[in-house]
């Protein structure tokens, strides 16, 4: 019985680890509605995967402050805190 439980815990933690690494931070999943996740899409909107983290952070902060003009990003950036922006940027920087 103890063996079974140990195996079960092992399974569950492997599954949990796999999900934790893949799960996007708050807000990040929505971006790919406009920012193409596929390289096959032709769009004037920037691809985010693998982009420099600091660059994404600065873009979001500038859209939010009005330093950079946006079409919809000025309105969207106002919905995110600095910590959320950092988490989203870090997550996209690590995507391939």
């Amino acid at each position, binding site marked *: 019985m103890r063996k079974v439980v140990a195996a079960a815990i092992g*399974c*569950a933690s492997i599954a949990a680890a*796999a*999900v934790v690494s893949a799960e996007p931070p708050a807000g990040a999943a929505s971006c790919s509605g*406009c920012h193409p996740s596929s390289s096959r899409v*032709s769009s004037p909107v920037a691809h985010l995967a693998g982009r420099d983290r600091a660059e994404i952070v600065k873009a979001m902060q500038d859209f939010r402050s009005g330093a950079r003009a946006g079409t919809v990003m000025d309105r969207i950036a106002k919905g*995110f805190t600095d910590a959320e922006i950092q988490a989203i940027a870090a997550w996209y920087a690590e995507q391939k």
Partner: protein
Amino acid sequence: MTSTRRAFLGLGVAAAASALGPRPVRAQSASARVVVVGGGFAGASCARALHQLEPRLTVTMVEPNPTFTACPFSNSVIGGLRELSAQQFTYERVAADGITIARTTATAVDPQAKSVTLADGAKLSYDRLVLAPGIDIRWGALPGYDEAAAAVMPHAWRAGEQTLLLRRQLEAMDDGGLVVISAPANPFRCPPGPYERASLIANFLKTKKPKSKLLVLDAKDAFSKQRLFQAAWAELYPGLLEWVSLSKGGNVTSVDPGTRTLVTDFGKHQAKVANVIPPQKAGRIAEVAGVADRSGWCPIDPVTFESKLQAGIHVIGDAAIAGAMPKSAFAANSQAKVCAAAVATLLAGRTPSVPKLINTCYSLVAPDYGISVAGVYQPTNGQLADVPGSGGVSPQGAPRETRKAEAVLAEAWFRTITTEAFG
């Protein structure tokens, strides 16, 4: 016995064998079964996101149609600016991802046994179920408007043959005819949709049949992006397009398909072409599964999109009551990805984190004139609410370059979101 049923019996044997081992873990493991009902923006996006987040999940998508026909940009088809084929997508790439597609209708759900019954009687067992059924028309809610009436006065609110019917009627109409659109009370699919449609029909009439008139009879006094639409209408379609609000007698109380007449509290309008956008409700399976409330829509938990009425069943897209989020393709796709992450997390035995969601909706007022609304949402007091200070519509009085740029972005958005969901 169908091959599907044989396959499930096979699975049953495997499940029975595994019962000798650590069976309670199975439902909590990464190889859990998720069934997604519906292959629209919500369902297809969710199935793909589930597979991407946790490839060991067994994901089955139930969808009877071999081809999906997208509603966004279908107003351009009605206005003669685009072909319906540009709206259509197969599920080949979704299947190629490793998602099993059951090309049939889900007819029943047993939330206790955790199974979905398919049209042929076969049953699909699930550990978690995602319902993404879109909308159904509330036939009969508007007196005179039934399925036969829709063949004469199309709704064109589910894209496909209805879209083409409305376009053909407009093309066949003599110059000088009266076109009437009837817009419903809230809530309904695509809040700015009736007004984009009015714009693009006005654009068609202005170009091809300039002596005609377009009347929009509305069951509301206010609508999405109203000031932007009305400013553009005054500029582009003066004297051609007239919007009649609820308080000015816009509420259509009955229709007569025999004479194409729309009756309001204030009078009657006999149209040459009538587009009735009728009252709606969540797609049928929501009611069957017991996840729709008396409003006809589905109350959900704003963190996981799990039904407030049935445990283990999640509802996303137009069918859900998503608080401040509109019933749009962008919102459906956004919800699908948040729901997929929550389902994967719950199946791993953990607690989903609190999400934020975004919506962006573009509307075309003319082929080269786009406007938008955007929003950011978070769970607040059990509902999805606007994040204070965020969101809003395109600037009033912006230069035409801005409107042109938004029309270009609208098309880019369509390519991007349809590729994520189907491509």
